[in-house]
């Protein structure tokens, strides 16, 4: 299953953490309509909180070793997705540091890179390329991707003519074939029919067995227990608990049940 050219967790890879988050904090504006000044914009990093802002995450520190499977737990609006985006490095922390020392396959807004007017084939090459895959690698995996997405008859159809289910399938197929050492999953699997969802889970399991690091945000206790060994519990923007997944889920249940 691992590609012949690259084996992400091969022996000889540094045993140090692949993800290191240190005192990370990020703040957002409370309302989008709030007044902005040029001064705000250029003030860069500062620990000061301006009126109308709140810390979505603060003082979050943890490290992840290669091969760990981590589930992020918390109520809505407690910073789960923000944390995932920090790890994907698509947003930058206002304080502290986030360092990710290996390639990331982000299953976040997976259909984001697809262009309506291009064909499925062109879109596969485009999206895989944007995530850093070389043309040759894509050639090698192209059939696999199409087969996984069950979309063989639509290769030269413009993307916009696909059904929404097909769109998600092809997107998942591409991103999950990136062969990156770190996999980020943000509840995308709630979409698609049951058969395909099961297929996605099987693929994630396969990647995990291949030694990938998983970073998983979900509300589903079952899925969390299925994949993850360690849990991060976020509450009011703080990392409330970092422990084995069962412990984290128990604490979460106790907090929400009370």
């Amino acid at each position, binding site marked *: 299953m691992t590609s012949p050219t690259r084996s992400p967790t091969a022996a000889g890879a540094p045993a140090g953490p692949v993800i290191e988050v240190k005192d990370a904090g990020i703040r957002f504006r409370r309302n989008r309509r709030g007044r902005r000044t040029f001064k705000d914009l250029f003030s*860069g990093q500062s620990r000061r909180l301006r009126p109308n802002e709140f810390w979505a995450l603060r003082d979050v520190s943890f490290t992840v070793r290669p091969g760990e499977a981590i589930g992020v737990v918390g109520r809505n609006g407690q910073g789960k997705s923000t944390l995932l985006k920090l790890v994907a*490095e*698509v947003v930058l922390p206002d304080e502290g540091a986030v360092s990710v020392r290996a390639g990331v396959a*982000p299953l976040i*807004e997976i259909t*984001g890179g697809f*262009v309506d007017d291009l064909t499925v084939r062109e879109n596969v090459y485009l999206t895989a390329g944007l*995530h850093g895959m070389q043309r040759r690698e894509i050639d090698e995996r192209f059939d696999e991707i199409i087969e996984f997405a069950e979309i063989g008859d639509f290769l030269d159809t413009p993307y916009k003519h696909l059904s929404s289910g097909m769109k998600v399938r092809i997107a998942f197929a591409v991103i999950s074939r990136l062969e990156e050492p770190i996999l980020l999953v943000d509840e995308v699997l709630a979409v698609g029919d049951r058969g395909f969802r099961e297929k996605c889970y099987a693929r994630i399991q396969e990647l995990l067995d291949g030694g990938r690091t998983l970073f998983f945000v979900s509300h589903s206790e079952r899925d969390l227990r299925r994949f993850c060994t360690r849990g991060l519990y976020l509450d009011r923007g703080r990392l409330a608990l970092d422990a084995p997944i069962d412990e984290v889920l128990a604490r979460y249940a106790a907090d929400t049940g009370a």
Partner: protein
Amino acid sequence: MRATGSRRYRQILWLLTTRDLKVRYSTSALGYLWSILDPLVMAAIYWFVFTQVFQRDVGEEPYIVFLLSALLPWMWFNGAVGDSTRAFLKEAKLVRSTKIPRTIWVNRLVLSKGIEFLFSIPVVAVFAIFGGASVTPGLALLPVAILLQAILTAGVGLIVAPLVVFFRDLERAVKLALRFLFYASPIIYSTHNLPAGLHTWAAFNPLSGVFSLYRSAFFASELDWYLVGVGAAMSVLLFGIGLAVFRRTERAVLKEI
């Protein structure tokens, strides 16, 4: 192995640029023609107004070649800066989900519009042949002109793109400024035609220098090293400001979109 650093940057830049061109040409029947039709129609209008209606005393002969040699590069600048107002907004989903060096969102516009410009150069050549314009040694400066314009356009784009995310009004302001700049730049006229007092100031519009370089390919007298020098300095300065603005606002931009 994954490509890293500048190699990866170039790969992704190229990927997005070809994507833009593919989308543009696969969705319209006339494709390439549109990108030259627009400047051609404009050139025809100005040619008619200034040579048939008014008795022209600006520019050089043949006027159509004089016009096109600045109008086509203007289309590049105008197109890239105009599109940079939507550089992030249009690609928001992709920016939110993919970790790509962020300056690519601007530079890909400069590159794709630049390629369209290169494809439109044969049009000037055709008019030069039939209009009887002859090439001067200034043609050797064409690569310099292109490089200078790329730096200038990228610089302006890097300033505009992030600021529009916060100040949406800027989108319209930029369109207006571009229209003003069209007449404030030596496109339908030459800097020689300006009153003496304005000539010094015209140099601070870096497009004056850029167009002077382009035009020197056909009109030796259009080459003005003072314009080129000041224009080059201004372009590099704007590029520096652009990079600084972009770096400082990147964090906030990513949160906003």
